[in-house]
């Protein structure tokens, strides 16, 4: 009962904050001095990217907890979070490219460390989902994917290092596109990050519930079958 109430509360908060963030991002904040209106996508882009990092972090943590406890509850959380992570990561990459095109003149820059790390994370978690799809049993699915999730996250600092080394040998002229972030823009950004975080928690709760129901259906099927 309590859980249901919590879910409703989170969903209401998510809706309210999303509405506020839309207002703040599109109407309240003035257009950027250099980038103009294009910059507005930035509020949703940063929030998506943030959620993808958060989601992958949760997958890692839940994976560790699963290996410790062997409780499928944690495995369900890890899987659900990875799925949501992929979704937001894809959104983050698309919105980022849309923003980059008019600002940098290109959709993608390999030498940008944030883009690079996000791309690597995206690949790792696509591999993570592929692994789960090919597992032979429930236990092995949970075990192997938890181990792979842990390996994947440990790899990230090394990707970071690899990119740094790579940049040393391929020096590029950095286009200054930052401009100054006015207080109203910072506020909009914070609000949209909060809105997306509530949205993430809400989707995660629902997704985990769906997994739980699937498991119950399996159990019932088993009973009926013999």
């Amino acid at each position: 009962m309590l859980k249901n109430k919590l879910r409703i509360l989170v969903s209401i908060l998510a809706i309210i904050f999303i509405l506020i963030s839309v207002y703040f991002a599109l109407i309240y904040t003035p257009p950027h001095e250099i980038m103009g209106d294009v910059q507005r996508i930035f509020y949703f882009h940063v929030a998506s990217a943030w959620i993808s990092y958060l989601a992958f972090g949760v997958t890692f943590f839940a994976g560790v907890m699963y290996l410790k406890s062997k409780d499928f509850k944690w495995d369900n959380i890890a899987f659900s979070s990875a799925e949501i992570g992929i979704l937001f990561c894809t959104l983050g990459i698309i919105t980022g490219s849309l923003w980059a095109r008019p600002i940098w003149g290109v959709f993608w820059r390999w030498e940008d460390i944030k883009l690079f790390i996000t791309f690597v994370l995206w690949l790792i978690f696509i591999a993570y989902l592929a692994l789960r799809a090919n597992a032979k049993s429930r236990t092995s699915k949970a075990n192997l994917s938890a181990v792979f999730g842990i390996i994947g996250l440990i790899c990230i600092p090394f990707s970071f290092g690899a990119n740094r080394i790579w940049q040393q040998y391929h020096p590029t002229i950095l286009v200054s596109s930052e401009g100054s972030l006015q207080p109203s823009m910072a506020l909009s950004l914070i609000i949209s990050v909060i809105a997306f975080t509530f949205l993430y928690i809400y989707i995660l709760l629902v997704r985990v519930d769906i997994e739980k129901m699937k498991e119950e259906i399996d159990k019932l099927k088993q009973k009926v079958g013999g």
Partner: protein
Amino acid sequence: MNAVKAIFLKELRVEFRNKQMINSYLILSLMIIASFRFAFSIIDFSITELASPILWISFFFGGMFSLSPIYKREIEQGTKEGLLLTPISPSSIYFGKLFANLFIIFCLELFILLLFFVFFPVNIPDLFSLLCIIVISTIGITALGNLISAISSNLSQSEVMLPVLLVPVLLFTVIMSSVSVTSNVFAGANIFDVLDEVRLILAFDVVFIAVGYLLIDYILEE
């Protein structure tokens, strides 16, 4: 320690008595290098600049195929349970197989290196530094590759799943670093000029040997 040695020797015996297997690794390496030669025969390119990525991609794909059977074989022959029945720890299985794998991959890389020099006659200012970097990186690649091979051996479609799992964790970490460092060596640097980068690769080796030691239990258990 005894168990690690026993598994190491067993793996090498099994591997080297399977003549077709060793031969197909060698032939595959030849094909990979030949493909690169083909791809770069139609454009003008500077060998010194492209040598490093060509070499590492060849190592990666050549080595990947020798990683694939090392755990799968135990499952296919039904000997995995026999190993788990004995009182050895799963980490000795990991280390025995890791050392055997390293030996095989080193041999393979030497072969690829020779082929590479035949097809891409590049000038090497410092062979010793080049070999050092190859050895250091290969340890990390194999430590993590071995672990991933243990994971993929338990999956359906394991031949496809091995590269799917390997590319994101190896290519954008240790191999990317190695490519940068090796291009520097081809351009005239020696190992002491790139010590910071080498340290990163060494850290990768240490971290993933430790990860393998800690996590192999969870992979091998049913």
